[in-house]
């Protein structure tokens, strides 16, 4: 995950009344060291370990054990959403690509600033996006979770 880069983005945007948060979901790749959650205490413990390991600066908000929020927003493991003031969805990303998030945010804010003067109206679109693949970091994460996480992913991938 692009934790540090997203923290940096949050810091850059903080003076524009933008709130940023990390919403903690189920474990994407549970293993012996960081197991799937059966209680909120499980979730809290793993989230605290993540906070300590990654030094994430944004607030961490815990979903319910059943993932009510995560499921409503599409249940993918590392999405990013931008919600406009008042609650309208501005951006939904299937993964977290910091450059794409920042580009979408800036485009939205620029449009809002110019909306009246330039008679702009919003419209819906979809587009292809790119993110950096950090295979080394991903593999380190699997190993950190435990041998089961490694074997689940790589044995499954081979099939």
């Amino acid at each position, binding site marked *: 995950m692009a934790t540090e880069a997203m923290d940096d983005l949050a810091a850059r945007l903080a003076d524009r009344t933008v709130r940023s948060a990390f919403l903690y979901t189920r474990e994407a790749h549970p293993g012996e060291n960081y197991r799937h959650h059966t209680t909120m205490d499980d979730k809290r413990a793993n989230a605290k370990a993540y906070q300590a390991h990654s030094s994430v600066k944004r607030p961490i*908000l*815990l979903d319910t054990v059943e993932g009510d929020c995560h499921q409503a927003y599409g249940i993918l493991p590392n999405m990013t959403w931008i919600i406009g003031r008042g609650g309208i969805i501005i951006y939904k990303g299937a993964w977290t690509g910091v450059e794409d998030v920042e580009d979408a945010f800036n485009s939205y804010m620029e449009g809002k600033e110019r909306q009246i003067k330039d008679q702009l109206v919003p419209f819906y679109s979809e587009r292809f996006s790119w993110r950096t693949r950090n295979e080394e970091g991903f593999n380190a994460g699997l190993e950190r979770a435990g041998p089961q996480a490694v074997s689940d992913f790589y044995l499954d991938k081979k099939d």
Partner: protein
Amino acid sequence: MTDYNYKDFEMAREMPPFDEFRNSLFVGEKAPDFELEDLDTGQPVQLSSLWKSGPAIIEFGSFT
């Protein structure tokens, strides 16, 4: 307990063709609100409080 919190990762189950994500909510719609828990304080937090005064950027994820 449902299988939301799976013990074992399975590619086919956990990474479907993104249908739920594609069809869940759309840009331009109202974002649903949920009660969450602030990890640091242990207090309940409404998701909507994030976008009350300005835009909110919300990243979903986990340690693993």
